């Protein structure tokens, strides 16, 4: 099954402006073919990632969420990605509580020069989500979601 012939899934990528967004640009400039399912939201730093954004994406109907930032020690803001790693790692463990298969979420590091790595990351992740299929409908009033909001703080 080629990426073109099957129905698209809803996959959202949060990319830091300095490394991964640049890496996705590099992949584009090099015309590295990628599945069209992924849509990218630009954030200044992976450290800006409030896990609530990801939860909201899933509750809004996203079938997969990808976060990508600068490689550890390469962060434009020195340590944003360390904060991101800590939070996202925690969030990953919380996903089952929300009734979401943790496989649907992935975070990684791609630098501005790594166009090919980005292509690979997108392709693999989109494949993975396709093998999992669409996410069953979640309900935002779910008590687990409320609990998450309390645990993580912020968000809205």
């Amino acid at each position, binding site marked *: 099954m080629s990426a*073109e012939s099957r129905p*698209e899934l*809803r996959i*959202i990528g949060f990319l830091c*402006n*300095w*490394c991964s*967004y*640049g890496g*996705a*640009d590099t*992949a*584009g*400039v090099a*015309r*590295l*073919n*990628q*599945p*069209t399912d992924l*849509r*990218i*939201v*630009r*954030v*200044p*730093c992976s*450290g*800006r*990632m*409030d896990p*609530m*954004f990801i939860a*909201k*994406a899933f509750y*809004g*109907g*996203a079938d997969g969420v990808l976060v990508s930032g*600068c490689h550890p*020690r*390469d*962060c*434009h*803001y*020195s*340590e*944003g990605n360390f*904060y991101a790693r800590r*939070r996202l790692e925690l969030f990953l463990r919380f996903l089952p509580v929300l009734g979401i298969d943790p496989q649907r979420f992935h975070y990684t590091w791609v*630098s*501005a*020069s*790594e166009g090919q790595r980005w*292509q690979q990351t997108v392709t693999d992740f989109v494949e993975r989500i396709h093998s999992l299929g669409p996410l069953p409908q979640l309900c935002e009033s779910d008590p687990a979601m409320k609990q998450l909001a309390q645990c993580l*703080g*912020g*968000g*809205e």
Partner: protein
Amino acid sequence: MRIGVFICHCGSNIAGTVDCEAVAEAARSMPDVAFATDSMYTCSEPGQEAIIKAVTEHRLDGIVVASCTPRMHERTFRRTVERAGLNPYMFEMANIREHVSWIGRDKKANTTKAVDLTHMAVEKLRHNRPLQSKSFAATRRVLVIGGGVAGIQAALDCADAGLEVVLVERNSTIGGKMAQLDKTFPTVDCSSCVLGPRMVDVAQHPNITLYAYSDIQAVSGFVGNFEATIRKKASYVDWDKCTGCGECMEKCPVKDAPDEFNEHLATTRAINIPFPQAIPKKAVIDASRCKRLITGKCGVCAKICPSDAIDYEQQDTIITEKVGAIIIATGYGLFDHKVYGQYGAGRFPDVITSIQYERMLSASGPTGGHVQRPSDGKEPKNVVFIQCVGSRDKSVGRPYCSGFCCMYTAKQAILTKDHIPDSQSYVFYMDIRSPGKGYDEFIRRAVEEYGVRYVRGRVSRIFPQNGHLVVRGADTLMGAQVQVEADLVVLAVGVESAPGAKELAETLRVSTDTYGFFLEGHPKLKPVETNTAGVYLAGACQGPKDIPASVSQASAAAAKVLGLFAKGELTSDPQVATVDQRRCVGCMKCAKTCPFGAVKEVEDRAGDPKAEVVETVCQGCGICSATCPQGAIQLNHFTDDQILAEVNALCQPNLGLNSE
């Protein structure tokens, strides 16, 4: 709100695989969109004029452009929007080129995706607020890191233009790799005659403070207001007293200290001045060799020194300097050929590197300019040069071209003939790359006037036989095996990033590429900038570069610094965090996480603690926003509301697109 949407064809770059008219059509049904159109080149002058015209005609108060990456033209369009009389932050971009048309082949899927991304930008824009920049004063001083030819040029250009310059060099003398060279291509100028006077200029310039034998330990702050911590390494010699007479070197009993400047072709004393023209011309004790420092016995140099400069107790000293801009000019390293087993992997003394050969050719080098075989000191007759040693070879992680080895090999082959008229040089090469001014002519001269024999092909093996080295390889033009008996083999070792570049990049918060070279802001539009405002690049720290290219880039970097300071006051980026004091509970978690220390504690009228952001210090990362349990500290232009608006847009069923 009245939003105008412009879908760019980018010639056929986007329109080739995206139906731009359909995207514009879909945009018309998006909330608050009052006007939508598609245009050929939105970034061109007519394209930008069309935006300005539409703003007045349709009374627009926000603009979305769906085109290339915002990393390319966000600033261009912000200026356009400003010219149209709107706040520059009432603008959003959708990246439908790099992230859509160039990576997907299916026009229908691409078009849907372009609609989604445009929708996302519209939704974000609906939550945008006008933002104002603030001005702040800059420290009109520049830090130049690295005292090679690029650093020297950058420092002199800045200093001549009236800026105060702090030049930090980690070796005990400036001059870098160029100081080690004998001659330079394609003019065969003597290297030290070109560089020497420039080095003296640095030493004598009233605007330049030189810290040699020093490292950058930390850099804090931001464009206009950096603070650099410099560690001046202990040299065990009081440089204020040392006159560089060199008497200590004569008498030091340790004669086997490694001579870095001469690439280990010779040895030197434990106390040493690298070369006679060194700037500053000061002695340094090699702590790992000095008898006195290791065992406490000796102390000869202290007795000998006529100016009483020796100080065995000296410690590293820490200096801080405030600067407004930084130029990185840390140069390059050379590939270690020992990974190539087939070239002897450092086992054969008569297989040397190009830079060692350079020292051997130099009249001030260890052999006084006599070309000799390291094994027996005899003059070689057959000299074989092998190019691309650690260049254009994926198997050793160096797939890139080192750029100038073709040229220096030709130079060295020419000089060989000058030194030993009855010698014969052979050059094994892959391609000849000689694109500079006068370069191709130079290669021709090597062949035609100096009889250098060029063999196109890779060397498969070097092995000793009857006091010679046999170089065996393929001549791919002849389609035959060739074998040359060599007296001396010179490996044209390739360029790699300088040792310590990675650590420096971390300290300065700039990026490096896959190979450890510093990454420029944009390969074409920002070749001397980094992605960190106020930090610039000069020379081979950014990638392989020869002397003319290094010097040009150094002057370009100096021009950038001058341009930066010419504004008088700098304006801060208003994409910073702000605190909603009503929501803030004063926990100060944001202050703890902020990597720049931009959040300070203040008291409100009731005397309760509240967070406040120092706008000129905040770099706009948003780490604080994600930390605050109250959602009280929000990053302007990337607020929770804005990001969630984008997420929501993407989560909705596709808008508009006349479903077939």
